[in-house]
């Protein structure tokens, strides 16, 4: 009956289709339960209960949410450009799903790096794996910009522009931070990177603490999560590019955001935490490696939730300045440190770049703390000497009357109530 599986080409296509479908199902399930876990965890941190009525401990809440979304009206605002308005969330989701393809979820089924099977737990081990993820995730800007533009709403468009500018700003630091890992691994293939860590006997976090810190900060900004969720800053922009979206299309955008979050966590655990490996524990049992990998990813996902519940949102101009003036030079510094260490003597001296990186992280934390105390909450000064908000924070460019402009612009920031920032934007 399965004669056609003897043809290697056909078998490969069948295997890839099955694995792709399985991956999509897994990612969507993870997305659904991430929303529930996020609401429960944030509620716990804030001393509330969270959704606990549907099923035991609220376990059926995602199902109820999904059903509710299916039955919601799909409307297109009268100002919107209908075609692109409908297309934008689709682009977001498809791009988010594609990026995950090259991440190895577990060890080879044979538990032997030399023996491959078409059913190994990753969709593709292509030799430009990491660049694939970078390039595909750079496409995710389109969903947001097009969604914001086509909505015909000022909040949406401004939110989309902010979001896109933020994403491109942090993508530079992200790419440079990853090149430190590449220097040690000497390969872009995610599978090979895990094996190199096994060969070397350490996780790359030990050799690349600075690179990891830069990566995780840039990643949070890249997926538009708190404290960098500027595009969705309710007080300033209602819901950013999501303002005009409702029902299923809105949840498609949410889905893309959560899947991007999962991808980013998976990349972090693969590059810096040894992927599916755990001190040789998973050597004989491939299925255990999948469990280990999921635990690592879950840790990072929890970190995202934790950050959201703990940190207040950063003002937009500071966010951009932090990305370009702090993170980017640090990423360049990380490259120099790593290059010196690798040139010095290769794998044996990994601890030099580890210690140097940790030192830089500590110094950076102190410097930021000090600057925060010195600078306080003053507005940034421009050349006129008058304290005003920079252009990127203003809603529209006013033609005249700088006096009025200043009043209107500084009003939203000043009047932000300190306790009003717990968003309900993730309730699906």
């Amino acid at each position, binding site marked *: 009956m399965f004669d056609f599986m003897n043809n290697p080409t056909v078998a490969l296509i069948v295997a890839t289709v099955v694995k792709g479908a399985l991956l999509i199902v897994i990612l969507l399930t993870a997305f659904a339960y991430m929303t529930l876990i996020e609401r429960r965890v944030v509620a716990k941190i804030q001393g509330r209960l969270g959704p606990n009525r549907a099923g035991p401990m609220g376990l059926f809440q995602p199902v109820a949410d999904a059903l509710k979304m299916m039955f919601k009206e799909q409307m297109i605002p009268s100002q919107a*450009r209908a075609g*692109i308005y409908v297309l934008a969330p689709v682009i977001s989701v498809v791009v988010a799903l594609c990026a995950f393809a090259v991440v190895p979820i577990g060890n080879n089924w044979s538990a032997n790096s030399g023996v491959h099977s078409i059913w190994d737990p990753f969709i593709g081990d*292509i*030799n*430009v794996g990491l*660049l*694939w993820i*970078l*390039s*595909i995730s*750079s*496409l995710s*800007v*389109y969903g947001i*910009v*097009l969604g*914001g*533009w086509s909505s015909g709403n000022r909040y949406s*468009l401004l939110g*989309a*522009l902010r979001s*896109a500018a933020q994403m*491109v700003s942090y993508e530079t630091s992200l790419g440079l931070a990853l090149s430190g890992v590449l220097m040690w691994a*000497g*390969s*872009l*293939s995610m599978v090979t990177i895990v094996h190199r860590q096994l060969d070397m006997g350490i996780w790359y976090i030990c050799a690349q603490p600075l690179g990891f810190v830069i990566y995780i900060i840039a990643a949070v900004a890249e997926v538009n999560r708190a404290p960098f969720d500027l595009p969705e800053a309710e007080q300033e922009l209602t819901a950013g590019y999501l303002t005009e979206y409702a029902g299923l299309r809105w949840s498609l955008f949410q889905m893309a955001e959560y899947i991007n979050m999962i991808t980013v966590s998976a990349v972090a655990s693969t590059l810096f935490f040894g992927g599916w490996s755990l001190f040789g524990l998973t050597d004989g049992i491939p299925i255990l490696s999948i469990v280990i990998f999921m635990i690592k990813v879950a840790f990072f996902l929890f970190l995202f939730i934790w950050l959201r519940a703990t940190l207040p949102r950063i003002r937009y101009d500071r966010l951009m300045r932090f990305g370009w003036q702090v993170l980017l030079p640090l990423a360049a510094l990380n490259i120099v440190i790593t290059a010196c260490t690798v040139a010095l003597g290769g794998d044996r001296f990994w601890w030099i770049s580890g210690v140097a990186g940790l030192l830089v992280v500590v110094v950076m934390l102190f410097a930021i703390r000090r600057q925060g105390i010195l600078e306080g909450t003053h507005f940034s000064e421009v050349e006129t000497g008058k304290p005003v908000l*920079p*252009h990127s924070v203003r809603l529209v460019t006013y033609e005249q009357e700088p006096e009025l402009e200043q009043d209107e612009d500084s009003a939203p920031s000043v009047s932000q109530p300190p306790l009003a920032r717990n968003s309900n934007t993730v309730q699906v």
Partner: protein
Amino acid sequence: MTFEIVSFVVLAVATVATAIGVIAFKNAIHSALSLILTLLFLALFYLQLQAMFIAVVQILIYAGAIMVLFLFVVTMLASDQDELALRNQIPWQRMVGGLLGLILVAALSYLLFTGAQVTGTTASHAESLKQAITTYQGDTQAFGMALFHGFLFPFEVTSLLIVVAILGALVFGRRTN
């Protein structure tokens, strides 16, 4: 073989269609989207030539960075100007454009039908690239090797070029803000 020919024809038709779309659409956003599709299809061409690295870089830089720039321009300018699009800004522009296009087509078809010979330094570079690909498994490594051994001076000049670009953007940014 047949698979390659079929997919090439499909891709070629799609690429040409989206490229025509870039100039045919009256709405600037639609043109930009069409251009993004064209660039993605080009990446697929590279994939078909088994140049994974170039394909991914094509997506990263052209579809990911440059087109974001284009899209920014289109979205930030007041874009209810569909009716403006058809007005000729420069006299003779269509005629000159058509003439230049004809010259391009003529030059390309001349090369295509006479079978251009790759000679001299280009040929030796191509040869060294081929060797690099067989020596280092993976085309990123091969690209890096070829770049850092054969094209060292252009690479360092590129760094100057990038600095100039960044400085230009910074100065421009100060003017606008």
